């Protein structure tokens, strides 16, 4: 089953890394995936975003057409992509930054207070990972164990094994909250 995910927010919010982590989880759990960034001039100012497609089968274009899941880390991300969500899709809202908004009523809106979750996990940089925890719990697109192993492997391979414990805590807290 093909899932189209867009991850969007301010530059510096770890948008690209969040997308890569989701991709890596898909890769390590045996799914096909594509990850595609906004690049070049688009990167300067405004919204950074990347598109992840996950499927059991070969993926054609890496660009999204009917978005299943939108991870919105800031307000402009919602302005830009909410209308492209398919009915019944998931809208994950970073409620630490985005408050008092009215959303489409034909999509599942999940408000995730990522800053609070990161604090609870005692991992100030763990907001995105907490968001991934919420994502897999609510959508069921991947297993918790698969993602947990993949994220640990990713940071170990990138020389950041010392953050493994804190990252696992953030993932677990995000997952258990929903």
């Amino acid at each position, binding site marked *: 089953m093909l899932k189209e995910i867009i991850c969007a927010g301010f530059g510096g919010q770890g948008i690209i890394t969040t997308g890569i982590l989701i991709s890596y989880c898909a890769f390590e759990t045996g799914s096909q995936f*594509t990850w595609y960034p906004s690049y070049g001039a688009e990167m300067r100012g405004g919204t950074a975003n990347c598109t992840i497609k996950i499927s059991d089968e070969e993926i054609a*274009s890496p660009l999204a057409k009917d978005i299943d899941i939108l991870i919105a880390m800031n307000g402009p991300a919602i302005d830009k992509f909410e209308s492209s969500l398919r009915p019944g899709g998931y809208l994950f809202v970073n409620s630490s930054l985005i408050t008092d908004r009215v959303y489409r009523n034909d999509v599942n809106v999940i408000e995730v207070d990522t800053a609070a979750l990161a604090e609870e996990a005692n991992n100030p940089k763990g907001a995105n990972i907490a968001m991934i925890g919420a994502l897999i719990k609510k959508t069921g697109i991947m297993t918790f164990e698969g993602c947990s192993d993949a994220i640990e492997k990713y940071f170990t391979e990138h020389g950041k094994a010392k953050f493994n414990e804190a990252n696992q805590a953030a993932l677990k807290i995000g997952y258990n909250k929903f």
Partner: protein
Amino acid sequence: MAEKAIMKGNEALAEAALRAGCRFFSGYPITPQTEVLEYLSWRMSEVGGELIQTEDELTGLHMLIGASLAGSRVLSTSAGPGFALFHEGISYICGCEIPAVLVDVQRVGGACGGISASQGDYEEVTHGGGNGDSQYVVLTPASVQEEVDMMKEAYEIAEKYRNPVVILTDAIIGQMMEGITLPDFADIDIDKFDYTYKELKDGEDGIQRGGYPGQGFPAYAAHMGAKYKAMKEAEQRWENIEVSDADVVCVAYGISSRVCKEAVRKARAKGIKLGLIRLITAWPFPEKAFAEINPDCKGLLAVEMSIKGQMVPDIKLATKCNMPVYGYFSLDVVPDADVVVETAEKIIAGTCEEV
């Protein structure tokens, strides 16, 4: 050791070049190719190679000539506007008969154009822009894994013919990440070839040659003509998908061919007999692929991200103009599989206009 990784197309092809034994890169930044330069700017020194960020793209190619003459496997990469500057060097690399691998990560538009994806460099790359009769094999990857696999193949073809090989890719494949398997590191002996310039033994004469034929033009013409003919015969590569019973056959390469593959699946599910010829070489154009098509096929559908349908003349020549050719040209937007299927339906219904 072969290893699994997730990488961007641009970075994957850079890493694959190193694993294929490339130890010299010279190039200039240009979106959407820049990650190749950036990646190699730290990675090349780890494997003991040389990298020069050049004053322009043209310079890079002339450095390649020197490094290739020294026996190294060499690489330069660019996008369309920079590739235009490559052509002086390409003509020399062909004329001097030395191997080199070049990459064009296509972006949109003539002039400066824009940085988004496109397939508008097909003619620029496959039909050359350099002076004289220069010609070279053009490989067209459709996935990040293929960018990796083609790198080794590109060096082998380049050395087999002592000629450049170009990998023609695009911004989508260059920028996207997929899961890949990287090959082992190859061991390259820079003294392997007798045409490279190395330290002489006492009494041994050096090599004196240049960008014009030492043997005279008639002999050069016969030699190069035979070489290009041999390349055309031996190096055609393609993938045919469900063409033997097809009513309509798409012709596409790179990112467009992935979409066409999806379109074939969607069409077949609806009972529409759609097939696909995916180019793996753009030059030589895989004429042989067309022999496998259903002789009662109602038409060929060229799908590419360009304005004028740059593959169309090659398709018409490959079929000796005996089959109608239609087009879906999407310039800077990745083609839509549903539109491919709709166009095929129109062709079958006889309501589509030929190109």
